[in-house]
């Protein structure tokens, strides 16, 4: 039937786990190594794995280039937007303490860090995929005999 049956089955099992791990790395970045950048790269690599096994066209259908283009700018907007929000709330640019009234537990800092890291994640994920799409759109598929 289809070639690389083992690769297809294993990667289909792995890809959701990789994505969940990416989000874990992002949301757990306060407590353990990692953060938005690493999470973005991990989630992008899940899509790239999908493209390698099932073809670039399938990946383009799953994550369209339009999403990638918007995401790259959206991440920077999220990051900058957090700074503007803190400005409007009456503090310095990117001073997260005002984001939440609970000063004793520094909840504002936690919210701010998660939000700006979400911006980093969005931009990194989109840019990694954009570069991959730009390259993969030009290279021919790997011929059978070279697997």
């Amino acid at each position, binding site marked *: 039937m289809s070639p690389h049956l083992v690769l297809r089955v294993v990667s289909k099992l792995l890809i959701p786990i990789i994505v969940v791990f990416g989000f874990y*790395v992002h949301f757990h*970045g*306060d*407590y*353990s*190594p*990692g*953060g938005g*950048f*690493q999470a973005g*790269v*991990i989630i*992008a*690599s899940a899509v*790239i794995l999908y493209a*390698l096994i099932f073809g*670039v066209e399938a990946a*383009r259908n799953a994550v369209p*280039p339009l999403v*990638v*283009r918007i995401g*790259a*700018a959206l*991440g*920077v907007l999220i*990051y*900058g937007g957090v*700074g503007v929000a803190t400005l409007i709330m009456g503090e310095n*640019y*990117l001073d*997260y303490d005002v984001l939440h009234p609970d000063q004793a*537990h*520094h909840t504002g*800092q*936690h919210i*701010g*860090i998660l939000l*700006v*890291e979400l*911006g*980093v994640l969005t*931009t*990194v994920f*989109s*840019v*990694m995929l*954009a*570069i*991959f*799409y*730009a*390259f*993969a*759109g*030009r*290279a*021919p598929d*790997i011929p059978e005999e*070279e697997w």
Partner: protein
Amino acid sequence: MMDGFDWTQLLDFALMAMLLAVGIAIVRLRNLFAAVMLMGVYSLLSAAWFVTLDAVDVAFTEAAVGAGISTVLMLGAMLLTAREAEPVKAGRHWAALVVVLATGAALFYAIGDMPAYGDPNSPANAYVGLDYLIRTPQEIAVPNVVTAVLASYRGFDTLGETVVIFAAGLGVMLLLGLGGRKPRRDTEEEDEA
């Protein structure tokens, strides 16, 4: 001092020996496919080495970017060229060797000025670094100091880095496009032919 011997040093030496072996193999290989794969191996070994040096965040990035995405991008670039490297003239080898030896000798000469591993009085640990370690629990209340420095104390730098990544992606998109119109271009070429 023998009872205080740090056995993880042996791991460091083993990893460095493997890095050296892989590096030499990459230089000597003609087959670009194998060279690209070995560069992924090199990144993965570096990541493992960073872990033994307690630089887990750096190791994370190296494993994901160096071993993962760069390998795929190098593969994509390689598919556009030949599979085998052209043989290089012998004279160029000697010039490269001289440059590498001179740089290596300068680096070895500088080792004497490096602080010992984990030295609390080294410049990296003493001034601002110590300040971050002391103040993060009270001011940010985040267990991972790396995240606190990255996202909060140096939020401006990270914003700049995000913009740099965005600009890099924008440059690639402007130069190469997203490859979305590839099938249409093919049919145009066929029409012309």
